[in-house]
Structure formats: C-alpha cells, structure tokens
C-alpha cells in the first residue's frame, strides 16, 4: 500500500511539474507542424535545444531576460529557415530525415568538447548559471506553500513560481492555437494537410504557408526548451532523438489536430510511465525485475503504446477521426 501511495504521489507530482508542461508546449508546437499542417518534423528536440542554448548562453553573457528570450525565438526562426528551404518543396519523408539529422547536429555540436567554454560540452550548463534572472522575477515570496496534495517551495527551482509560469504559458499557447486555427490562415494550413494541390489551385502559396507553420511550431518548441531547462539543467543529451519521439508519443496519445490533445497527452505520458513503473515495482518480485528493470519495462510499455495508438486509435484520446488525415504528402 505504501508503494502504491508513493506511486500516486509521484504521478501527482509529475502531472504538474514544469517538465510535463515543457513536453506539452513542445507537443503544441509539433501539433502545428504535424497535426494541422501535415509536416513531418522529427527534430522538435532540436528546436528545444536551440532555444535552450540561446537563452542560457545569452543570460550567462549578461543580457537581460527579455532579450535572451527574444534571441532564443530568433534562433528558432533561423533554424526553421535552414530546415525548410531545402526540404519543404520535397516529399514529406525528406523533411523527416532532414529534421532528425539537423536536431542531431545541434546536439553533437552542443556537446562537443571544442565548445566546452560556451555550452559546457557533454556536462552541459547547470541551472544556477542562468536561472537567477527568472527566479528574481518571482512575486510568490519565500517559504513552503501547500496546495491540495502538493507541497513545494514558493520560489525555489522546484517551486510554485516555476510550475505556475510553465502552465500559464501552456494555457496561453492553447488559447493562441485555438484562435489561429479558426482563422482563415489556420484553414489554409488544414487545407494543405488534406490536399496540397487543391490549396495550390486556389492560388495560395503552399510553400510559404508551410514555412510559416514550420517557423511558428519551431518557435513554440524553443519556448518549450526554455521551460524545460529553467527548473533543471541544460544537457544536450536530454534533448536528443528520444525526446522528439516522446513528444510525438504525447501528441498522438492526446490527439493530434486538437487544442488540448498535446496537453492531455503530455500528462498521460508521464503518468502512464510512472504508473507502470510503480505497479511493476510493487507486484513483480525483485528477483524477476529489479528496480532498474522496472524503469526500462515502463519505457517498453511506452513504445508499445505508441505502436498500438497509431494502429488502433490514430486520432488519440481527444481526436476526431474525420479531422485527422495521417497521410503526409
């Protein structure tokens, strides 16, 4: 029973953690690419990493936080242009391979020992080197605060200030996506997803719209990167290919092409993982599955879940089957 309570607490903690919010934000960005426009971006973690590095390095260089934030967004725009120019005219799977490769290049350069002075190499940058200006913005005061089952510092790096800002950003972005996808611009994007040629026949510049979508989703990915590193540390390897895969899993679990799908998906993703791990830890004897193995078992379940969701319920938990056309041209 104790074990079960511990698992429950761990799930509740992870449900509201800034990391979950960051995954949700990254999935919201990916949703603009994949869910609404039909672009196969397999480099969302690269956008996160670009945003995170730009933000952290700018702050360490002494720039004010607003400027650092803007630099991160501009960096994501440039990265999107580099990816989009050669590939958006080609068939969908080229974009997939290129984005995946580009994200890997960013990660490899970031963790290279040549750049240890700037990026910290494979050790990365510790949070307290760039967290200060954000913590200083807090108006939450000091001490510990109880809220429902959760008890956290008001402002500490694990605290309410970080949690509240992260989820505020999630809410803001959900509202934004809801609004733009109802606009004529959003309708063009969905049109491109359904039938690119038809949209082209209407006189729209499909290439330009795709590029705009790639940039917008990428910028949101960069914001996710910043939210992800603020309460933790910046390590290139924590935003590698697996991260992109997890963002896809979260998005497809919740439901692509829906406003709340990415958010729900991110929470379910973490909850499912901890639940499986907790249950395996409690009910499977240690001789069959040790502590390390319960963690790996949970990841195996995540992988299989992704396969089953895509096969049997491609629209996810919230999605509408008619709305989602999976086939990217």
């Amino acid at each position, binding site marked *: 029973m104790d074990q079960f309570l*511990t*698992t429950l607490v*761990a799930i509740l903690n992870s449900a509201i953690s800034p990391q979950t919010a960051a995954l949700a934000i990254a999935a919201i960005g990916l949703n603009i690419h994949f869910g609404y426009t039909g672009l*196969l971006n397999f480099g969302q973690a690269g956008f996160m990493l670009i945003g995170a590095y730009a933000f952290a390095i700018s702050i360490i260089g002494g720039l004010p936080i607003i400027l650092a934030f803007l630099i991160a967004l501009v960096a994501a725009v440039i990265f999107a242009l580099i990816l989009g*120019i*050669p590939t958006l005219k*080609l*068939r*969908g*799977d*080229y974009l*997939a*391979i*290129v984005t*995946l*490769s*580009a994200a*890997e*290049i960013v990660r*490899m*350069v970031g*963790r*290279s*020992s*040549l750049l*240890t002075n700037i990026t910290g190499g*494979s*050790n990365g940058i*510790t*949070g307290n080197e760039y967290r200060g200006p954000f913590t200083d913005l807090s108006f939450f005061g000091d001490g510990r605060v109880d809220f429902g089952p959760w008890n956290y510092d008001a402002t500490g790096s*694990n605290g309410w200030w970080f949690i509240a800002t992260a989820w505020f950003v999630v809410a803001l972005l959900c509202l934004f996506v809801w609004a733009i996808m109802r606009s004529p611009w959003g309708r063009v994007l969905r049109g491109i997803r359904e039938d690119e040629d038809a949209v082209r026949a209407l006189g729209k510049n499909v290439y330009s719209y795709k590029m705009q979508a790639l940039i917008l989703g990428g910028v949101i990915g960069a914001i996710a990167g910043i939210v992800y590193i603020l309460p933790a540390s910046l390590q290139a390897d924590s935003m590698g*290919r*697996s991260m992109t*895969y997890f963002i*896809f*899993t979260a998005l497809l679990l919740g439901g692509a092409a829906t406003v709340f799908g990415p958010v729900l998906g991110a929470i379910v993703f973490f909850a499912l993982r901890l639940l499986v*791990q907790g249950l395996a*830890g409690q009910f499977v004897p240690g001789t069959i599955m040790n*502590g*390390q*193995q*319960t*963690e*790996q*078992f949970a*990841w*195996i379940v*995540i*992988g*299989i*879940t*992704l*396969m*089953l969701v*895509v*096969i049997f319920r*491609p629209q996810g938990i919230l999605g509408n089957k008619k709305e989602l056309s*999976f*086939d990217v*041209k």
Partner: protein
Amino acid sequence: MIMMAITAVLLLVGLGATPALAATTPTPTPAAACAANATTGCLQGTIKLPSGDPAVGIKLEIKGGDLDTVATTGSDGKWSQAITVAGPYTINLDTSSIPDGAVLDSAAKNPATVNGALNKNVGFVFKIVGGTTADDGTTTQTPTTDAGTGVSFERFLQQLVSGIRLGLLLALAAVGLSLIFGTTGLSNFAHGEQVTLGGLLAYLFANVLGLNLILAAVISVVICAATGYFQDAAIWKPLRRRGLGTTQLMIVTIGLSIALQYAFQYFLGASTVRIDMANPVTVQLGPVALSQQSLVSMGIAIVVIALVGFVLVKTRIGRATRAVSDNPSLAAASGIDVDRIIRLVWTSATALAGLSGVLLGLVLNGVNWQTGLQLLLLMFAAITLGGLGTAFGALAGAMIIGLVVELTNLVLPGDFKYATALVILILVLLVRPQGIFGRRERIG
C-alpha cells in the same frame, strides 16, 4: 539465473587473470549498485585509467541535500551514491587517490556540481589522463597520442581504410533499409535495432554461452532473418492489409524502436559488451594498422555485398525485387507476387542488418543497446545520398558516408564525425534531392 552465474564466473576468471591489477591496488568491493525509484535517485559514474582499465579506489566526496559522504570506485571503476533529496550536489574528486602516473584531466570541473533527481540515474564523468603530480601540487599532463588533428599521409591512409571499413559495414545494413523503403515505401526507424540485435545475439552465443565465434555469428544472422520474417508476418503485412498509410507505419516503427532499445537494456543493461574476449591482434599493412577482425569483416562484407548485387541483377527473384521497388502496382499487374517479394526483402534485410551488427561488434570491439541507433541516421544519409529505394545507390552512398565520417577525423575533432555526414545529407538535398542514382519523379 544461469546466465548470471555464467557471467559471474566469467567475471571471476577475468579478475583472476589480471593479477597485476589485483596486486597493486587494494581490492575494495564493487560499489553497491544503486537502483532509482520514486523515492531514491542515483549519482553514478565510471572512472577509467588512461590505459582503459577501471580506476579502482578513487574517492569522491559528495555533499548536498542531507548527504556528506565519500563514495569510492569499485573494482569495475564504477561509483554510485543513492540520494533521497533532489537538488544540486557537489562532487569533489580526491586527487590524492588517483594512482601514480595519472592526473585528473585539466579540463575537468573539480569539484563539480550535478543536479540529483529522484527516480533518475544521474551520471557524471571524471576523466583521468596520463601525467604526473609534482610535490608542489602542480600537474603535468601527458598529451594524448591521438589528440592532434594534424594531417599526415600515414594518418590519411589509416583513416581512408577505416572509412572503407565503416562504409562496407554500413552498406550491409543500408541496402536492406533501402530495399524495404523501395518495396513498401516504409522508412523503418527500427532498422538500427536490427543491427544492435545481431551484435547482442553474437555476444550471447559467443561470449556468454561460449560457442565458436563463426557458429555464433551464423546462428545470430539466422535468428535475425527469422525476426524479419515474423515481423512482416505478424505486424507489417496485416497493417498493409488494413491500409495504414506510410506515415502511420513509420511512427509504428518508432514505437517499435523505443520498445526494442529498452528491451535490450532490460535484458543486458546499458553497458558495452564484447563479443570476442581475446585482445585484438593487429596486422600492419605498410603504414596502416588493422585488427584481424577488421580484415576478416571487410572480406565478409565484400563477399556478401557482391552476392546481394549478383542476386539483384542476375536472378529472377532479384529482378522481381527491383520491379516491385520501381513500381509495386505495375509489378503486381505483371504477375509478380508482391507480398512474397516483400516478405523476402524483410527477411534478407534483417539478416544483413544482423550480420552488420555482428561484424561491427567485432570491429569496434564492443556492442551496446544504442550501437544501431547511432548508425541509423548514417544509414538514412547513405540511402538518401544514393537515391531512396535503390539498392546500388545505398551501397555507393554508404561508401561515401563511411569515408566522410572517418576522414573528417583528420581535420575536425572526433565529436563532429557523425555531424559532417548529416551536413552532407542536407547539402545533397539542396543540390540533387533525388540522390546519385535516384530519378526525378521520386521527389514527389
């Protein structure tokens, strides 16, 4: 249990066979492994001597949370410390515990700060390099031999041969990936795991069960072929019947890739295992030094690739495969059993990937759960470069990528060698998106 017993025996034998190590160092017990769960996190790392042997008895002061303790590396060079409070921890390596003739790398942060988290393993690396510590505490570091990026003709030749070696082994795996793409339109993101599987199976049979190396390799390849056969029967054919689009199928392969990677870790852990425990014998060919395993592996790869090429060009079944690759509906209309060809392609592709894994494991002297993962993007770069879906394009692309990766080492530090291959991929798409052998209409 039996496997654990065998590994334990092997470990003991291994320890007994190195009396020099046991004699010079006190023999602390291996650090108790720490298992992360919801209430505990682990800080851990492995420290190695410049010679590559584990550094035993290195002391690390760990402070932070409610801890103020000293962790010591065990006989395997590993240290770990369980924590119950998340937050920053400082790790201070006691430099006086480093054996003579070695010092802490001057680039290392000591003391270092790491962020411990519950339910997570946080690794931290201290690098020890050759050098001496003078009495006044200053350290002199011996420059490592391969640190330079200087270009000499000998180094060029050595890297050229390494490049050909990587290209050949990459080609084995890439041809299959390309054929699967050609016949089914599927970008198989789990193809890297098929490579890993080959290497790990060879480890299992040759090392753990002690079979003859060649026998072990053959059994591994046969099992890999069987995984391809059953994969198509159980997953891909039913999904094709259901009419799943290629994008959907591609994401299914990503799920499969995640599941397989962690399954490998589940059974074999995250460490690198060796297929052949004997020390590699080096053969000197003029200025180029190659291990025997490398030479034999290159030979096998050339023979197998030539065989695949022959089958594709000269036999009925090969012509049918190329026909399906070019245009599945036209091939079906002309009486070719497309499903049978696809089943065959899956079987041979996974067999080739498995062989590639076995040979890579021998050449690189080790294989772990992400060996194939690291190769996957190189494979994609190779087949894109050669022209998606063409088998000979994959071969040419793989050779080019192999050479580029190894020759990059001449001018750039090793961290960048894979990155350059991917930069080339992006440049190719800019200039000639259909690749070397691809045709214009494939661009879409």
